[in-house]
């Protein structure tokens, strides 16, 4: 009996992965149907990253410290933000297109398909352009992490674990936005507000005063996503903050799934 359940779960996972892979291939093909757009988009992203990077470099080089962090540490904060932000955009680009599905009631057809709707509306539009940029971010991140003093395998492992935790929170944020889209048909600004909040922690959270700092850390847990992993890497993370971070993540995931289920029950297929 137990073996049968395991076999069925394995089959389901394989099937879901196959569908994910198929949708990813479709998404890549769609992206490259507009080659000029691809080039412009990449150029724009590269310009933005390079200028921000240079700005931080000049700023902290001139001032020596930013909220108590030196240049290399500040750059690690910035690169960690870029890595998590790009990974989230890479995976969850389809969320940006969800509003149209709701207002046109095409979402009905997604719900009727014999697979979980998240496969289509959450991760069904992998953005290959963000994948291209992740490699330079990773390369630079490894280089600047390598320059940090007192680095240990334990710190790197905790940092990596907290990055995975950050991705779980990012997933929850996007599920929340999907739920809000069903309830209010508002997606674009909700997404951009999420990205504005995450951008606020592209710099160390220490630049903010209380209660804004705690708000960004535990209420809108973008601080847990981008700030806490880097603090762990510097050996500055305390056990209470670590435990609270995990607890907030779990609460956030549970809440987003609850809201999604609630929103689904309220979905009335207005545009259909």
């Amino acid at each position, binding site marked *: 009996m137990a073996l049968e359940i395991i076999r069925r779960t394995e089959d389901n996972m394989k099937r879901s992965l196959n569908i994910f892979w198929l949708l990813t291939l479709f998404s890549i093909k769609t992206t490259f149907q*507009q080659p000029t757009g691809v080039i412009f*988009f990449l150029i724009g992203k590269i310009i933005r990253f390079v200028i921000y990077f240079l700005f931080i470099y000049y700023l902290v080089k001139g*001032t020596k410290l930013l909220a108590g962090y030196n240049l290399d540490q500040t750059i690690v904060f910035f690169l960690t933000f870029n890595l998590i932000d790009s990974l989230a955009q890479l995976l969850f680009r389809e969320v940006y297109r969800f509003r149209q599905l709701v207002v046109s009631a095409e979402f009905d057809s997604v719900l009727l398909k014999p697979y979980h709707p998240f496969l289509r509306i959450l991760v069904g539009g992998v953005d290959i352009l963000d994948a291209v940029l992740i490699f330079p971010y990773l390369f630079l991140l490894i280089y600047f992490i390598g320059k940090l003093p007192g680095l240990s395998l334990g710190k790197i492992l905790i940092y990596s674990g907290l990055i995975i935790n950050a991705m779980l929170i990012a997933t929850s944020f996007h599920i929340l936005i999907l739920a809000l889209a069903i309830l209010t048909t*508002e997606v674009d600004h909700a997404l951009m507000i999420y990205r504005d909040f995450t951008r606020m922690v592209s710099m160390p959270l220490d630049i903010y005063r209380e209660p804004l700092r705690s708000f960004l850390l535990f209420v809108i847990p973008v601080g847990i996503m981008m700030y806490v992993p880097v603090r762990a890497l510097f050996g500055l993370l305390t056990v209470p903050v670590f435990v609270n971070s995990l607890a907030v993540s779990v609460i956030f995931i549970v809440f987003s799934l609850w809201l999604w289920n609630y929103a689904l029950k309220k979905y009335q297929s207005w545009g259909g």
Partner: protein
Amino acid sequence: MEKYLKIFQITFAQYFVYRLSFILWRARNFFNLIFLYFLWTSVFHNQKIVFNYTIDKLITYIILINIMTAIVLGTRTTDVTEDILSGNIANDLLKPMSFFKVIISRESADKIINFLFSLVEVLVLLTVFHPKVFLQPDFAAYPLFILTLIIGIAISFFISLSLSFISFWSAETWAPRFIYMTLVSLVAGTFFPLDVLPKPVYNFLLLTPFPYLVYFPSKIFISGVSSSLIWPIIISLIWCILLYRIMLIVWKNGIRNYSAYGR
């Protein structure tokens, strides 16, 4: 004139129909203001002068940038792209109204409402955080500030409208606009005063139209009038005229090329 005033009023009223959307848009601007305020306050934590700026001048700079971004970069010219691609522009062209005056009416409503909300955001910042701000004591700077602000509005309008006119030839207008917005967010001075950059980079940027959108008027407000402003003002005027000519050329060629297919 009355019909354009009506378009202005209708555009104004539209923002109160889609209230949530507009409020969220302004909330985003407010978060950006808060981010910049804390970032720069933190930079001045251990130092009185950073890149030749005192804290009051730099805070004034980011406050001005928030207001001027609303006035200069707030735009409805992106609607033109949709009108061209959907064919709706054919209806506009058939109406007994000047196409450009209609756009200017919509644009004015957009700028005024964004300006009013940006003032509220700044008031919230001033009330909550009580930052020191700098008021330019040299009154000669104020007319020059207004003049350069008008030039900035014109430059932004001509570029944005020209980008929208690309849709006469191609549906892929979002890509050049994305690059434009990226450049504006970085080299127009919306994130940091451009003179914190190395001198050669700064001098090069002054040859492009971007610093004249929001950085240059703010700089005049902060630094006052000096002879060093003559060349940048001349360059900004040249860009203004050049971009106006380009916009007209693109419009004339585009409208000649346009066949309103699908209508």
